[in-house]
């Protein structure tokens, strides 16, 4: 029984996005979610097309803007399961400001970043996570800038759930997605994903050879340990798993009238209720 139907995609055969889509369907099914209870908010890019290929509610908005939209959807209706599905260019580049500030907001949404270390949809320019020195059609001298470290940033900002996984490890990815969706608060899951067409460096094999699940004995509660793990990269191995996790009141918990009672969307509206405020102008 798969309620989350399968559709034709516009992705290149062999693209890492397929593994992510498959894992997403499994995660939602295993969590017992029904399609109409789930919303995927996405931006623009190959990754951001994900909601088109799975039967859930979708908000396929603007480049870089999936997170504030997702957050507001959750605030409007706390009964919905809200997932943001987007690329690393979308999230850390164009949407960098929103990424930072939504960590602070801590709205209960799961944010899955398909991190292929390249701009796919616009044909192979460097993204914020492209390795320093890597050449592209635009970065003809090689990328000059430091590589963006999303996990370290999220940990520093106080994100309540920070994890990494790999599109080529379905079991691991499904378990991470489930943990992120079930986490109360903003959950960042950065997913290593090969772009077979435009990123000839970070290939499936490149990731496969380097990703290593975090030791089972690791407890993701120490910010400094998490920070250290977030800085492990490349030939030193790329740790996958939950790096950091903590319990904090979510956005909705912090606002009493949102926390109590029905979702905002279900509240009764009556203009007469506002009449009393005219006293402010007497």
């Amino acid at each position: 029984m798969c309620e989350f139907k399968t559709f034709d995609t516009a992705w290149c055969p062999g693209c890492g996005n397929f593994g992510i889509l498959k894992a997403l369907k499994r995660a939602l099914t295993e969590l017992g979610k029904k399609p109409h209870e789930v919303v995927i908010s996405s931006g623009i890019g190959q990754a951001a097309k994900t909601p088109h290929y799975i039967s859930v509610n979708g908000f396929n908005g603007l480049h870089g803007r999936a997170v504030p939209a997702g957050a507001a959807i959750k605030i409007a209706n706390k009964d919905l399961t809200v997932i943001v599905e987007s690329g690393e260019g979308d999230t850390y580049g164009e949407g960098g400001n929103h990424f930072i500030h939504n960590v602070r907001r801590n709205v209960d949404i799961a944010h899955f970043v398909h991190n292929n270390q390249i701009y796919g949809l616009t044909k192979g320019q460097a993204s914020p996570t492209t390795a320093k020195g890597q050449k592209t059609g635009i970065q003809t001298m090689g990328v000059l800038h430091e590589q963006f470290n999303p996990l370290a940033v999220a940990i520093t900002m106080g994100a309540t759930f920070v994890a990494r996984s790999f599109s080529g490890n379905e079991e691991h990815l499904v378990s991470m997605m489930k943990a992120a969706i079930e986490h109360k608060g903003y959950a960042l899951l950065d997913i290593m994903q090969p772009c077979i067409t435009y990123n000839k460096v970070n290939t499936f094999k490149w990731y496969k050879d380097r990703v290593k699940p975090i030791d089972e004995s690791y407890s993701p509660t120490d910010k400094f340990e998490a920070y250290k793990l977030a800085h492990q990269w490349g030939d030193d191995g790329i740790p996958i798993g939950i790096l950091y996790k903590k319990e904090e009141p979510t956005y909705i918990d912090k606002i009493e009238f949102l926390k109590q009672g029905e979702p905002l969307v279900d509240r009764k509206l009556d203009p007469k209720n506002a009449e009393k405020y005219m006293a402010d102008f007497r």
Partner: protein
Amino acid sequence: MDYNILIGGSAGQGVDTVGTFVEKALKRMGYYVFSNKDYMSRIRGGHNFTLVRFSDNPLCAHKDDVDVIIALNEETVRVHREKLTPNGKVVCDVAFGKEDDKNLNLPLKEAAKNAGNPKVMGSAAVGATLKLFGIQTAKLEEFLNEVYDGEILAANLKAVEEGYKMVDTIFQTTPPPGEDKHILINGNEAVALGTVAAGCTFYSAYPMTPATGIMSYLAKLQEDANIVVEQAEDEIAAIIMALGASYGGVRAMTGSSGGGFALMVEAMGFAGIGEIPLVVAEVQRPGPATGLPTRTEQADLKFIINCSQGEFPLMVIAIRDVQDAFYQTTRAFNLAEKYQMPVVIVSDQYLADYYQTVEPFDFSKVTIDRQLAGEEAINSDGVYRRYSLTENGISPRIIPGKIENQLVFVDSDEHDEEGHITESAQVRVEMVNKRMKKLEELKKELQEPVKVGEEKGKTLLVAWGSTYGPLKEATERLVSEGISVTSLIFGDIWPLPEKEFIELAKTAEKIVNIEGNATGQLKDIIRQQTGVNCVQSILKYDGRAFSSQELYNRIKGEVL
């Protein structure tokens, strides 16, 4: 009877507080009040002033000449003296020293000290001012009792009393027309009140003068009214959050001023193609770029109408005064949901910040018409399609999560009926047609501009938005002198309601546009839409609003 009081000083000196005392005292006496602010973009220093005009007749604009100046510093006397009417007086402290027939050099500071707090000097000045007009202080005391208590209240009351004793009455006043039944409210607050009345429960914005007042008032109510007021990280996030919330099923709004709105425009187009209901308040200030942050202008109209790339339906309503601000805001929410499109309410600093006494808003006149669909929105094949093609272009809208097994998909890409990305030439044309048809439908319920003056005047004056008040007053004055003028002030401005204008243009000898900008934007829109040209323009772009006197003079001098 029509008097004008100017309260001036540097920022931080209490110009606002003193202004409020004067306004509230007069308003609660039962007078009509109109007050506006002129302030600089700085927190301390600079020169700020408030004008409080009062009358026994309704007021809709400020005026320039002043009967009393309350000077909190010496600069105020210097800057504004020449505005005094022949009998005008300056209420100031003895420290300003200069003896002349205008300055009432009063021991205000000393009175404040005697009252126990040097900061209440302004209250002594208010006491003296009320006495100049022979107006009792009881209502002022009532107000002070509501906002202060303890020592500070006692000091204020004492200072008012002391001030009152310092002068004699010199101005003749008519008794107020009756008991005070009005509210005294500004444009931003009226928009905010309309927002709450309309059942909006999500307002996200990024602070920008002069739009911030909307957010401030909503924030004050947020817990009591259960409205989420989120200060976004930037204007892009602000509008996107509002769109997300709207999609999620609540009534949502954002607001900003020109520069902030400039950042929102990509999302405006998204609201258009995504058919997501949205209300946006654009409170204009002079631009471009950062422009004059605390001043006024009406120069964003063409930009708003043309916001975002591509073509999509959009409605723009220019609000004319505070009454309009309230009712049009509630109407904007209904239209946004009915047509599933962005509706922009255009205001400006003048209207945003001026206070006017008006009839209390009638909340029983406000309807919340959400136009949401239920199970009937599901097609015969059992599937809901967000963008189903319909006769009038409006597709039934449901809220995600509310109907078992039905999905709501919105997309910024061109899409098919289900919301999925398409590049089909045929679907593209169908979808563009569908969206544009909504405008045709909307045109049937546009509100014609407000008409003032003669039924069919020889001179036709056209204006929009906040020019309404000053122009109304100027027009009535001209008509009372036997001059044949008609003024049309547009509120609904995009799409442009054309009927009334074309009708009057047929018989008018001269058509003149009056706008707070340098290029005559309304004139261009009128010509583009109707082919009719305004032969002359009265424009103002010094960062200040037209006063009625100024308009009267300019119409007489330049047009007639």
